[in-house]
């Protein structure tokens, strides 16, 4: 098919109207608008109208565009290049590597495109099929070592039907631009295959055999792992007003989650936050692999001052890369911060297209897009029997911190876990400021079901008594109720809260979580023989102090066991023997 050409007719910020001169146009295809003779601005067809008019959303600043500027269509949808070399890199929302761009300019000048994957690197390829083999899409041709993994080289997922391998290269070093295999379809047409291929970002990669997320993914954050867990292949959202700790939580998840690959989609947020990640992570060692944390990380940065239209692309690109690494049989985690900025980008474009607005001027279809996005997460039982998973944790930034708005509501319907961040908790310096009562998760916890109910019940009781104390004062309630209140407070202070600046307390392994839970439960279930509010408070102050000291001790610490018994003794000293009552 001949690629279309057109001329610019109208310009309204990022929305550009184009009259087609020749060729046919595909909705969703990529086009380049040529301005000032040589600057090529990447854009995407988002609307096709009568009289050969199409509308493009431009991924760059449209300043200095003119009516009559030439538009060249590519015939191809917006795609991401998939192959070895993605891990450890930092790109903009259109997969341009930022370090490469920085070699030329201080600023992100428009019209710059760089090879998404380094095509000078020689990868050591080991073939795993022989000449004459019959292969279909998703079959493995061989593998190259990439950072921490054997990166499998697939028959591209875009190929349909059976192919015969006509030629495969011998073991050796190749770049992603070199042909590594030639395959032939039933009609005798041959196709040359390389180690990298393109995949359209908006098209979910097919599952081989989709399965249900049931295995909890340890995050190192106790309140999540115990009360509101996420499973491998699951989805979660953390809405919250500004200043409630969304970013700190996301950074902690990026560092400590037990995933093989972590993809950070910095969508419409502060550039400084992405900078912290990609400047710090190379220096940090991942204790699970002993290698740099950056080796398992990929960052897509379309930060708030970059062109708005590319926000959507950045989210989809991260997801497609995630699906690709799931196909590698890995556990992938996507942190999308913030999905609200993506929704706002859609709102801006929708407004310029003069679509009839829905609530708060968001387009009517926003909820469909959000659910379709989270649906790309999941567990896949792969062709070779391995299991891969893709989990998505999306940040939501609701206007005014009010969860009753379209993006939060659509996200709640689409995700399996809800971590509501609260400004009241963050003002009280209770990290993580995840609402203890309103948050929920449908995934299994690292603790037993009965244990989770036990914790939640205590927290509810504690909250009720706390409000009674405000109304009636400490003197207005019984010692028994006051003890229960102090137990809930203790649970919150020593188990649910974590000191994110402490290397030990900042991340808790599943084994340690179990140990900590058992101790805290023993404390809570020990009946106490203390009379008087002052004495009760003082007792719990000491217990809390001892437990917090324990929290910052490493399991290998010689004092660790001693401290544990000290806490328990402290409590048992004040216990009463039940039979004497």
């Amino acid at each position, binding site marked *: 098919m001949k690629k279309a050409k057109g001329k610019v007719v109208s310009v309204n910020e990022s929305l550009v109207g184009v009259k087609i001169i020749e060729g046919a146009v595909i909705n969703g295809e990529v086009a380049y608008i040529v301005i000032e003779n040589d600057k090529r601005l990447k854009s995407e067809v988002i609307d096709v109208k009568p009289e050969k008019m199409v509308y493009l959303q431009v991924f760059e600043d*449209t*300043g200095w565009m*003119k009516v009559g500027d030439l538009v060249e269509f590519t015939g191809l949808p917006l795609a991401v290049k998939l192959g070895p070399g993605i891990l450890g890199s930092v790109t903009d929302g259109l997969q341009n590597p930022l370090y490469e761009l920085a070699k030329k300019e201080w600023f992100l000048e428009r019209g710059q495109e760089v090879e998404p994957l380094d095509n000078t690197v020689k990868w050591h390829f080991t073939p795993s099929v022989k000449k004459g083999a019959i292969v279909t899409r998703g079959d493995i041709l061989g593998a190259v070592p990439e950072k921490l993994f054997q990166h499998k080289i697939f028959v591209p997922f875009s190929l349909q039907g059976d192919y015969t391998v006509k030629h495969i290269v011998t073991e050796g070093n190749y770049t992603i631009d070199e042909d590594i295999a030639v395959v032939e379809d039933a009609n005798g047409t041959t196709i040359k295959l390389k180690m990298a291929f393109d995949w359209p970002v908006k098209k979910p990669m097919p599952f081989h055999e989709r399965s249900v997320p049931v295995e909890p993914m340890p995050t190192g954050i106790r309140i999540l792992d115990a009360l509101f867990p996420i499973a491998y292949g699951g989805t979660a959202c953390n809405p919250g007003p500004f200043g409630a700790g969304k970013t700190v939580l996301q950074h902690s998840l990026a560092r400590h989650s037990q995933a093989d690959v972590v993809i950070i989609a910095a969508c419409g947020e502060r550039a400084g936050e992405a900078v912290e990640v990609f400047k710090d992570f190379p220096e940090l060692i991942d204790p699970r692999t002993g290698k740099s944390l950056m080796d398992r990380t990929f960052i897509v940065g379309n*930060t708030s001052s970059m062109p708005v239209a590319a926000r959507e692309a950045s989210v989809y690109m991260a997801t497609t890369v995630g699906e690709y690494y799931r196909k590698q049989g890995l556990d992938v985690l996507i942190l999308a911060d913030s999905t609200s900025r993506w929704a706002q980008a859609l709102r801006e474009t929708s407004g310029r297209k003069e679509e009839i607005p829905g609530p708060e*001027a968001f387009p009517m279809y926003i909820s469909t897009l959000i659910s379709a996005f989270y649906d790309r997460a999941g567990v896949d039982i792969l062709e070779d029997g391995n299991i891969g998973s893709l989990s998505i944790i999306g940040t939501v930034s609701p206007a*005014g911190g009010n969860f009753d708005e379209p993006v939060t509501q659509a996200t709640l319907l689409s995700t399996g876990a809800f971590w509501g961040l609260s400004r009241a908790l963050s003002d009280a310096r209770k990290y993580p400021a995840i609402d203890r009562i309103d948050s929920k998760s449908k995934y299994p916890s690292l603790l037993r079901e009965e244990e989770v109910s036990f914790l939640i019940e205590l927290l509810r009781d504690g909250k009720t008594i706390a409000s009674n104390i405000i109304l009636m*004062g400490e003197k207005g309630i019984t010692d028994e109720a006051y003890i229960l209140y102090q137990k809930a407070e203790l649970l919150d202070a020593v188990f649910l809260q974590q000191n994110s600046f402490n290397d030990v307390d900042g991340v808790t392994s599943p084994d340690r979580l179990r140990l900590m839970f058992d101790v805290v439960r023993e404390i809570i279930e020990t009946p106490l023989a203390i009379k008087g509010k002052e004495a009760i408070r003082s007792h719990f102050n000491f217990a809390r102090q001892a437990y917090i000291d324990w929290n910052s001790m490493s399991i290998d610490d010689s004092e660790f066991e001693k401290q544990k018994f000290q806490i328990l003794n402290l409590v048992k000293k004040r216990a009463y023997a039940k039979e004497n009552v």
Partner: protein
Amino acid sequence: MLKKTYENIDSIGRAILSIKAEDVHNKELAEVIYPSGDKAFAQVIALDGDQVTLQLFSGGFGVSTDCKVRFLGKPVQVGFSDDMMGRVYSGNGQPIDNGPKLLSDMVRVAGPSINPVKRLIPKDMIRTGVPMIDIFNTLVRSQKIPIFAKAGEPYNRLLANIATQTDADVIIIGGVGLKYDEYHYFKQRIEEAGSKSKTIMFIHTHRDSIVEGLMVPDLALAVGERFALQGKNVFVLLSDMTQWSDYLRQVANAQDQIPANQGYPGDLYSQLASRYEKAADIDGAGSLTILGVTTMDDVTHPVPDNTGYITEGQFYMKDGYLELFGSLSRLKQQVNDRTRDDHRSIMNAMARLLSESEERVKAQKFGSVKDDYSLRLLDYRRTFQKELMDPFRFLELEDALDLCWDILAKHFKKEEVGLSSKLIEAYWPEKGTFKILKHKTDE
């Protein structure tokens, strides 16, 4: 480039003009030529066939259908030179201080954002001498942070204090919607502090058109960014960004844009972000720090709300005090572990106790606070406010930290403050030996 003049104006609105013209660039600068020969600037904001929509820098009032429009073949630019120091400019970049016009390089306005990999992780504390900032929400070089306050609070005084008490190489004041006396105040403060030779002002007052007001942050930031690239540490003050957002709302409304929340355009977040994100500590160059003002009644209003999601914290000013709760510096952790070894711990202890006392304030309303500890918490709260929350009390960080210890010792026992024994041994003042706190209380 050939400069073409067109005469067939179609429509004139409050800030918008539409005309038929050809070969016009998006965002091109134009001038509207009045029959009298007077000229006013305008900028192309949309193209549709031969229909060109322009934003009028001086507003639509007085523009006639027999005005001509000349397209200037260049985008909006602003002058940039060292000679601008000490000068005052309007929102369209023209000097308004009766000084001479300058021949200077022209630089682009509202340019693209800096490549994130060219940013450094901010790591230098800016000492302001304001205890609530230096101790609790430390200001860091290249931070973008506004003051949230009701209109009428002394935020401009604090802004001027911070700018003149710190070590900025260049101060750029962007005044949006200033009352004349506020403009005068800034000018006077800068002169009194002897900072005039390193200060440039871009001023929009209520008598000027709103489009000029909209331009002020862009001009201030474009010039600031240039100085930063030359290796200078630049402070840009923007007051008041709520007025700026209001102008944005008016202009969007005039263009028939669909409003999102409370009439503000759906891109309010992106518009604010593209300005605030100019703050940066640049690898191999200088830095740009933005201190803004966001006037507000309620923090959930769209302007402070969107701003809070963009900036790296905020200083919350209320009843003339800088509040602890509601204020935040997202960058403080980058620097407050390298000041004094007790800084972080005492900051947290003071905050925790203040938070505890807040609960007592609530309970007090029900008359249920009678125990000694609660009463001491309430006393502590009063001392805290009196001694620390005054934004105009100047204290070196070390003195302010000592003051915190004094306050703790005045109201609490050592075991009540939740600080490590090591720190208590090093810093706890024995009764009667306060370093900073006056011994006698005048309560």
